[in-house]
């Protein structure tokens, strides 16, 4: 980068600038290596061991791929994986589609109104997830929740629905909360992206007789692709890593167990079981592989587009 902006810069000067740059990076790098890269390597290594809290040393005994083999037969893990995929498959497209729709509707509004909408949709994002979850928990409550109260009052149900205790509903209730807390950031990003679409291209397309849909699909959508890609990747990762909602609302019960929650439960609750750290880390590696594959696919599709 230094070479491009200063082609005539002397080598010594370049070196000095590079060193300065790296020194600026160093604090972040220390954190990144210490809290991301090294734990990731440890996670991969221990997934091949029977590491647990009782034996001396971090790595336990090498057990090869047996943790991964066990995972393929672990009913709880497979159910958690299925639930995780349901969350991802449902929430990612709906979050993207809804935020795009809302953004398209509001991005041309006048300043204060637009800001008000942005605030409304962004509020669940900036509010603490615990506070949001507690409110939703009250609304879903089997005995005193507002949903049952309203539905019963309207004569739509006779008996209360156990929203968070019935596997027919619980996962969908979680997805709904995840949806409300996930749309804020994409809406803000899409509003910004729509505002930055080159107006001359839109006008040129319109002059050439393009319909509104064609303008959107051929001009706007194409220019928003980097934003869409970012939103897709972030929403996918967040959906895969859904944990707090499960922990606070159902503790993995009523058909809401996810891989993230299963990792936590195996690592920290089933401490009597041999090799629980290694086994939980194997789950983590599997989850990381799936996230990586899906993100790569999204990158590839976006590139082709």
């Amino acid at each position, binding site marked *: 980068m230094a070479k491009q902006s200063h082609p005539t810069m002397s080598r010594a000067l370049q070196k000095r600038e590079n060193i300065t740059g790296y020194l600026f990076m160093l604090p972040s790098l220390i954190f990144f290596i210490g809290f991301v890269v090294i734990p990731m390597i440890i996670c991969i290594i221990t997934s091949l061991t029977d590491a647990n809290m*009782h034996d001396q040393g971090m790595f336990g005994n090498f057990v090869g791929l047996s943790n991964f083999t066990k995972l393929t037969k672990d009913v709880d893990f497979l159910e958690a994986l299925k639930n995780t995929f349901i969350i991802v498959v449902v929430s990612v497209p709906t979050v993207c589609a809804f935020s795009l729709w809302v953004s398209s509707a509001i991005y041309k509004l006048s300043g204060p109104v637009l800001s008000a909408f942005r605030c409304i949709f962004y509020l669940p994002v900036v509010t603490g997830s615990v506070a949001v979850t507690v409110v939703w928990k009250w609304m879903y409550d089997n005995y005193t929740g507002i949903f049952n109260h309203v539905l019963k009052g309207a004569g739509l149900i006779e008996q209360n629905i156990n929203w968070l205790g019935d*596997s027919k509903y619980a996962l969908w209730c979680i997805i709904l909360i995840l949806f409300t807390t996930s749309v804020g950031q994409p809406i803000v990003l899409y509003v910004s992206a729509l505002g930055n679409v080159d107006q001359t291209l839109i006008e040129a397309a319109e002059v050439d007789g393009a319909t509104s849909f064609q303008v959107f699909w051929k001009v706007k959508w194409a220019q928003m692709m980097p934003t869409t890609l970012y939103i897709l990747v972030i929403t996918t990762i967040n959906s895969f890593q859904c944990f707090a909602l499960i922990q606070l609302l*159902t503790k993995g019960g*009523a058909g809401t167990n996810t891989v993230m929650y299963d990792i936590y439960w195996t690592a920290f*609750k*089933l401490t009597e079981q041999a090799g629980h750290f290694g086994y939980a880390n194997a789950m983590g590696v599997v989850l990381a592989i799936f996230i990586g594959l899906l993100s790569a696919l999204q990158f590839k599709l976006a590139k082709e587009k």
Partner: protein
Amino acid sequence: MKKLLAMVLAMTMVMALVACGGNKDSTTPAQDTPPAENNAPEAPETPAAGGELTLWTYPIGNWGQEDKVKAITDAFTADTGISVKVEYLAYADGDDKVNSAITAKSAPDLIMEGPERLVTNWGDKGYLVDLSDMFDDTDKSEINAAAMTACTHSNGEVYEYPLVVTAHCMAVNLDAFKEAGADQYLDMATRTWSTDDFIKAVDALYAHFNSPVGAVFCKGQGGDQGTRALVNNMYGGTFTNAAHDQYTWDDPLNVKALEQLKSMPGITFDASLEGGDEIKVFYQGILKMAFCWNIAQQLNPNLADTGAGLTASGEEIAFMAFPSESGAPQLCGGIWGFGIFDNGDQARIDNAKTFIKWMCDSEHTVDAVKTANYFAARSSAEGTDLSAIWADNDIMNDYQVLMPYLGDYYQVTKGWAGARTEWWTMLQKVGEGANIAETVATYAGNANAAAG
């Protein structure tokens, strides 16, 4: 000039990071050093009679309340010169904190909880100090035999010094029972009822209130002693064998109890509630009975502050034993006391033993027991009679009628944490309508398999 400034700034940030991250507490005992080397401190900072201790306590009665605990630990410090730093754990994440501390080799000196954690888990894994040398023949004769057995590992080592005991029971909304005409099924003198009477009472309540009156809560493990005791007592089933080496809850008698509960419209299997949640709904007057109850709840004036033994709207709460066919219920016991983590520092271990002796076997034991709001685990302590310390409290006195029903303390069975998970997961499946006999067999089998 700019670059020089940038360099200086970067270096400052790095140095700040190093300074913030590298401050290793020199007073922390070197955990990896063999204990023998730690036995000879080079220069003790405090006099031999003083020192400090860390105590982590679960919310065992008022041992979870800072003002109450501070009063008694301050008295201990004044008496012995040993200061006590207390950390208060919650059941929701207390185990995570302790396990993380063990993994990080920063466990506290003392931990207050029951044998299911101290003996079966941390003691079994070798993290706790053997307290056998603290019990002489007099102590053994004074301490409740069942409590002493529960605190002793199968290898003969004692990992918990018991302080208090209680019996877990259930509770009924007496006013609601009277309103529905179901109070006729309660024997208020003995606080017992038969399984048939329980079924009739639930039916009467359901007919009157037209909504579920009791919840087999199964969101998680919190308060699961209640659901276990309900199922086991109805037809005399067992949870483990007598040797505490096998889970036997696939007992046909338990299957029969679950089938009976599932068939009752007045009972709901609720996967959105744990024990604590159930108590709240019971206090609100929505549920007419609570399966997660003990003397701590009976003494609790509840959040609405209507008074002990009353719901939020002032209805009378009566504690009851679980219904049984035989009329002789087997209640789950709660035994709580102290264990010492083996942090390799003999001086701290000695101080911890001094603490335990002061709390559990001295004239101060009365205060320690009263702080917990449970019953003393021993009849007397160094000549101080503990059998009548609650004579001035009617509720505590009444509650003692349940103590003879204390059953087997099976929570010390190997693989306990995993078995609890299997239990509430099984209840969820039963609640969803799965075949009960098959489900029970599967999950009991899982518990046994995990226990090895």
